[in-house]
Every structure is written in C-alpha cells, then in structure tokens.
C-alpha cells in the first residue's frame, strides 16, 4: 500500500521537467524518497498524524496551462504589502501578478552561471533529506523555485512576499521551493503566504524553504498557512545560522485534513539567536501538526520559542518541540513554551516538548500547558455586560494576542487581527472589540 504510494509519487516526478543542471538534485531526492521506510503510527515522528489522506488519493500534477487568472475574491486575500511580490499559481510563477524582481532574486530557471553555482551549493544541503521524508519528495519533484540572495552587508529595501495560491480541483499536487542565502551582514524579510480559494477542494502542497543566514546577518521570516479545509499541506523550513546570525520567525496555521509543518534550525556559529513564535488554530474536523527542532551545535547561542494553540470543535493538534544541545555547546540559553487552549469537549491536543542536552553549562527550560477557558475570566466579562459568546471570542483571541502583537511587520499584523478574530467568531458582533483596537 505505502510502497505503492511512494512509487506513484516517483512516477509523477518523471513527468516534471526541469533545467538540466538541477537533475542531479532531483535524482538524489528520488533516491532518498524511495529509501525512506513509509511511516506508520509506530514511527515516532508520525505518531499522532495519519498520512492516509495523502496515501488514499490518486495524485496528478497541476496543469500548467489551466486558469492563470484569479478571481477578484482570491485577489482580495492578498496582503497589501509594499514588497517584491512573487505569485505562484498552482506551482508556476505568474508574471502578471508578480512585481518586477530585484537583482537579489531570480527563479531557478532564469539563474545565471554564478547563481547556478550558488543554488547547487546550498539547495538540498540544508534540509536533511534522510530524515525529512517530504523534503526528499520536494527535491524529487523540483521543477520551479526561487532564490533570494543578498550580498554582504546589503539590506533588501523591501520585504519579499511570496504567495502560493492553488485553485485547481481534486487531487492536484503542487511543489513549492524557496532558497534564501544571506551573506555576511545581510538583512532581509521574507513573507510566505499559502492559501487556496474556496473552489479548491482536495489539493496538496508540498513546500520547502531552505535558508542560510551568514555571519551577523539577519532574516525575518513569516509563514502564513491559511488553506482550505480539504487541502493537504506538508511543509518544511530549514535554517542554518552562522556566527552572530539572527533568525526571527513567525508562523500561523489553520488546520486541514492533513497539515504538517517542520521547522529545523541549526546554530552553527557562536552568538547566533533564534526567536520563533507560532500559532495554530484548528477547528471543525481539522488537523494540524507542528514539529520543531532547534539544534545547538556551538557555544553561546540563544533560542526562544513560543507556540500557542487554540483547538476548537473536534479538531486535533500536535506540537512536538525539540531542543538539542550538542556536546560543547556551553553557555546556551534556550527556552521553549507551548500553551494550548481546548474550547470544546471533542478537541484534542498532543504535545511533546523535548530537551536533549549533552553539555553542562547551559540554561534550558521548557513548559507546556493544556487547559480550557478560565471560568473566572468568563464570569468577569459577562458580569460587565459582554455576552458569553463574545467573551469566549475575546478570551480565545487574548490567548494568542501576545504573539500577534509580536509581529513586527505592521501591515501583516493589521491583516492578521481580523482574520484570526473571525476564526473564533464569524459574526462581526462577536469580534467588534477586537478588530477596532
């Protein structure tokens, strides 16, 4: 059954065309994908998330020719950001919707000789394809991608906004790939936005982002996952940090039939810093699964990771956070916190904050909580004349508000507030106090 599925995926890889200089990487990806034992419920990394939704489908690749004009409704979902915008529709770059690219950016297909060398040097090297199943598949399916390369001590004047939107129907698979290389002292902001229009029912996006943050460089990374309920998403963000590098990450996801997002960050130079915040908001029958891993390979690095989840209806959330301190990574400061709010009787959460520590002079702490809305807080609000339904929305929003407020990109923060509020209460009456700050 599973082996069959792996073969089926490989057959799809053969249908993709790619520039010849990337075919080695694709072949490698295919090999790793084949070599993977297919995960079962006994595989630790997939203990709580079933891959059946992806296995039980006969996948087709998205048709390139079809529908490149998006409806007004879809366009309205774009974040109005003064940025270099790249719009991928069904996995292909749509040049009409995208802005002119700066010199720092290029698609793999248009890369010049020097950029090709750079891509070959890093692509597929940052994400470990032996351990990350869908990273291997992403390389195997590679047909299009984008490189963001900022030269030493340069600062990209505007954020980069990469939109992945799908509007094709049943059982269409899409591959997305981004490579970020920041040289010494460079600075950039990247916003990745995944969504699907309501017409898309059962598509599957397999996305992979690889980042190299050079010495003293700084990357701000936002990843917004708001696909339709039936869409599948398997994604990964893999980052390498050199000396004194900074990574500031924010991620938001709703749930769907299958949504699995892996963050894997490696401190490879001393003094590097990771700030990672995440929010997951599954509802109805949705599933969401975040796996994060931060590896401290060298001394004097810091990590601060906070994930909050509000799980409603019969939804199910999984959080697996792991901090791995290697031997000799002394003077590490690492903190991880995961808090969950269950707002219904059927909601479920499985959380596993792990610490694996091989050095002694470190300060590490992690905390995890699971609870429901505080009765006293509810009582307080209702005693002030707020209806119970509205109070619930306010308290749910308050649970994640701290992280939303932490988003530095103003436009994004203002864009997020009403959307998150609407996930808790569709009715404007319920969200009026939240949206009008």
């Amino acid at each position, binding site marked *: 059954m599973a082996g069959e599925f792996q073969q089926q995926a490989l057959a799809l890889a053969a249908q993709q065309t790619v520039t010849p200089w990337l075919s080695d990487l694709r072949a490698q990806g295919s090999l790793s994908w084949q070599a993977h034992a297919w995960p079962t419920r006994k595989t*630790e990394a997939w203990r709580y998330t079933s891959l059946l939704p992806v296995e039980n489908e006969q996948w087709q690749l998205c048709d390139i020719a079809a529908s490149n004009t998006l409806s007004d409704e879809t366009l309205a979902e774009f974040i109005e950001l003064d940025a270099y915008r790249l719009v991928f529709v069904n996995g292909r770059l749509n040049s009409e919707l995208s802005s002119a690219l700066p010199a720092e950016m290029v698609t793999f297909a248009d890369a010049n000789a020097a950029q090709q060398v750079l891509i070959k040097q890093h692509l597929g090297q940052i994400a470990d394809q032996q351990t990350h199943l869908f990273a291997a598949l992403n390389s195997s399916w590679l047909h299009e991608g984008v490189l963001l390369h900022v030269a030493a001590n340069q600062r990209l004047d505007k954020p980069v906004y990469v939109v992945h939107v799908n509007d094709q129907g049943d059982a269409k698979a899409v591959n997305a790939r981004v490579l970020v290389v920041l040289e010494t002292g460079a600075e950039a902001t990247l916003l990745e936005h995944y969504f699907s229009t309501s017409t898309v029912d059962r598509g599957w996006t397999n996305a992979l982002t690889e980042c190299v943050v050079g010495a003293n460089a700084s990357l701000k990374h936002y990843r917004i996952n708001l696909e339709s309920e039936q869409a599948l998403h398997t994604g990964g963000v893999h980052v390498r940090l050199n000396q004194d590098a900074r990574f500031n990450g924010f991620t938001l996801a709703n749930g769907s039939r299958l949504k699995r997002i892996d963050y894997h960050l490696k401190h490879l130079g001393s003094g590097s810093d990771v700030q990672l915040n995440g929010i997951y908001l599954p509802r109805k029958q949705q599933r969401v699964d975040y796996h994060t891993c931060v590896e401290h390979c060298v001394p004097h690095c810091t990590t601060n990771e906070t994930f909050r989840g509000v799980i409603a209806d019969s939804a199910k959330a999984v959080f697996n956070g792991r901090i791995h301190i290697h031997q000799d990574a002394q003077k590490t400061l690492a903190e991880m916190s995961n808090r969950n709010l269950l707002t219904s009787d059927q909601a479920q959460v*499985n959380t596993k904050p792990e610490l694996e*520590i091989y050095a*002694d002079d470190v300060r590490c702490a*992690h*905390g995890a*909580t699971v609870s429901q809305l505080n009765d006293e807080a509810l009582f307080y609000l209702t005693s002030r004349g707020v209806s119970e339904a509205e109070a619930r929305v306010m308290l749910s929003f308050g649970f994640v508000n701290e992280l939303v407020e932490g988003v530095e990109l103003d436009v994004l923060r203002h864009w997020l507030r009403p959307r998150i509020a609407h996930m808790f209460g569709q009715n404007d009456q319920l969200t009026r106090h939240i949206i009008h700050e």
Partner: protein
Amino acid sequence: MLEWRLKAYRIWQTMEEPDWAHVHYPEIDFQAVSYYSAPKSLEDRPKSLDEVDPDLIETYNKLGIPLHEQEMLAGVAVDAVFDSVSVVTTFREKLEEAGVIFCPISEAVHRFPDLVKKYIGSVVPQRDNYYAALNSAVFSDGSFVYIPKGVRCPMELSTYFRINQMNTGQFERTLIIADEGSHVSYLEGCTAPQRDENQLHAAVVELIALDNAEIKYSTVQNWYPGDENGKGGIYNFVTKRGICHTRAKISWTQVETGSAVTWKYPSCILKGDHSVGEFYSVALTNNYQQADTGTKMIHLGKNTKSTIISKGISAGHSQNAYRGLVRMGSSAAGARNYTQCDSLLIGDRCGAHTFPYIESAHPSAIVEHEATTSKVSDDQMFLCQQRGLDAEKAVSMIVNGFCREVFKQLPMEFAVEAGKLLEVSLEGSVG
C-alpha cells in the same frame, strides 16, 4: 499457572525488542541467561535469620533495611529475594494477626490461588511489552501482598532483592492488592555485587488499589552500576504499574542510583473517579550509566489528580532521560496534572534529556509541565567552599537539597539512606 506462563512465552517469542528508549547496550543473548538460580539448596535454606550469610546481613544494614529482630522497633517486615528464590520473610505471624498476607508469590500461588488468578496480569498483561512478556513466562518468585478491607497495615512491608550469581537474570514479580479502604506502605530495595558480566533484571510489579485504598510504593535501587569504564552492571528493564479505583491513591517514590541501563516507568491508571496518582523520582547516573525513566499517568476517571516530580542528576559520561506520558482520556472531566522535571548536570560529558508526552482529549482537564536543566551553579559552590566545605561535600549538599522534595516522601530510615547512597554514587565526580 503453567498454561499462563506458556502463553506468555509464546507471546514473547513473537515480540521484538524495543529500541525507542534513549539507551544503548549490546544485544542481550537471552539463551545465555540463567533463568533460575537458588542461593542454596532448599534443604539447607536458612531456618532463622542467624543462618543467613553475614555478608548479606551486612548489605542489608548498609541499605538501612533492618532484618535483625533486635531492630524490631523500626517495625519493618521484610521478604528477602536472593537470585530467584525468596529466602526469608519476617514478621509473618504478626501480619497475619492483622489479616495481612505477605509471602513469596511462589507460596501464594499454592495458598491463595483464587486471589492470584484473579489479579495477576490484570494490570500488566502478558503482551504488554517485551520484558513483561519475558517476565510472565519465566518469573520464579517475588512478593505477594494482600491487605483486607479497611485494614491499615501495621508496619512497613519491604522486599529486598539481590542478584548474587554471575550471568543471572532476575525476574521477580510483585503483586500488591489493597482491598477497599485499606492502606499499605511498601519498600523495595535492590542490590547486586560487583560482576564483570552484565546481569539482567526484568521485574513486573502490579498494584491494585480498590475503592478508597492507598498504596505507597518506595524503591531504593542500588544495583551494581558497572565500573568507571562502564564495564559490567545490571540491565534493569522493569514494568511497574498500578490501577486506582474510586478515590484510591497510588504513590510511587523511587531513588535510582544503580544499574548500567535503566528502563523503568512506574505508572498509574487512574480508572476510578477522584483517584490520585503520584510519582516522585530521583535518578542519579554517574560514569557510563544510562537511565531512561519516568512515568505514565493515564487519567480515565473524573476529577482524577496526578503529580509528577522528577529529579535527574547526571555526572561523568552518563545519560539520563525523563520520558513521561500524561494522557487525559475523553471521560476525564476535571482531571488535573502537574509535572515538574528538573535536571542537574555535573561535568561536561554527560547528558540530560526530557521527553514528555502530553495527550489531552478533554477541555476541562488541566495539564501543566515544567522542566529546567542547569548545572551546579558556581555561586553555590563558592558559598559552600568559602564556608570551609570541600568541593565534594559541597556538591553532595547541593544535590541533596535539589532532591529534597522527593526524599521527604520516603520513610525516615530510607530517606537518610538515600542521601548517603547519592553521596557514595557521586564519589569521584568532582575535581
């Protein structure tokens, strides 16, 4: 009984050795292990305490488990299991007056077949896991305790295990049944002398606390941990689990200092409403010891509560992992869990790991988990040394303070001994 064991053996043959724990050890040749070893032939089994090998009495004394009648004041009834056979059980008559049954399980099988049949395997079934299946197939002795309704056991009960023979596996089975409204406190001590070869210890402990009963189970484990180079030592693969009925309480307290590899998760199934589970643990590893230990709290009943306090101390080249599961079932309304696991690192070649699993399927269940990892702070060391303590004493004092929350759960004599054990185990880890 034979059939029950054969069934377990067949199950065991179909199972694979688990490899998910955070420990490494060479493969065990299960054919090379002796499954039964009697300390002396049954005829000249010691008739009274005076005939017991003075060396063994000595080890008892060192551990603070008074076996001699003169120490009757301490009021502890002891069942001593050497290798595979229960050697001596003290205070039998006095306990029987109170209606308490405390005897080797080999005897219980003959004398109380109904009780044994009803409860054995009810908490840890044969196919529970690899080592539990092995134990079910080959166990030769262990302790059996039954506390009748409403009885408060008049003294602490204690079992003492020792593996003497080389290359022997010890597979004891303990079954404790606390009937409605009863109370019992049970101590378990383990040691083994120094051997080059690795020995195997795969025990199963089953606790049954019926309505309103309370069981307190304390363990001080001092198996031979292997030498400085990690040679020899005990492989300790133990399954311990208790089931709590309505308003019952099970409390596990453990101090782990021995064994080369530990794989042990004393667990509570909180089946009845308002039942309580507690787990207090100190696990100390030094040299090349490896420990993967923790607990499982399975909340099924309403308003069930559990507390987990785990303190891990790693020194030398050792690896110490906490692995715990807190599961709130979909019927566990109002359930509450608090978990705290702290790790202390001594030396820069050791590891401390935490793998907590939290599964919550009820919104009114509240789960809290906290963990910290740090080393013995230089400031604390400086303060102690400046007051005239040498480095080793200072560390031992700081470690004792770190473990205080757990030690105060132990019965008095044990708490003092546990402190000393830590001191001995930490020897040579500083400076």
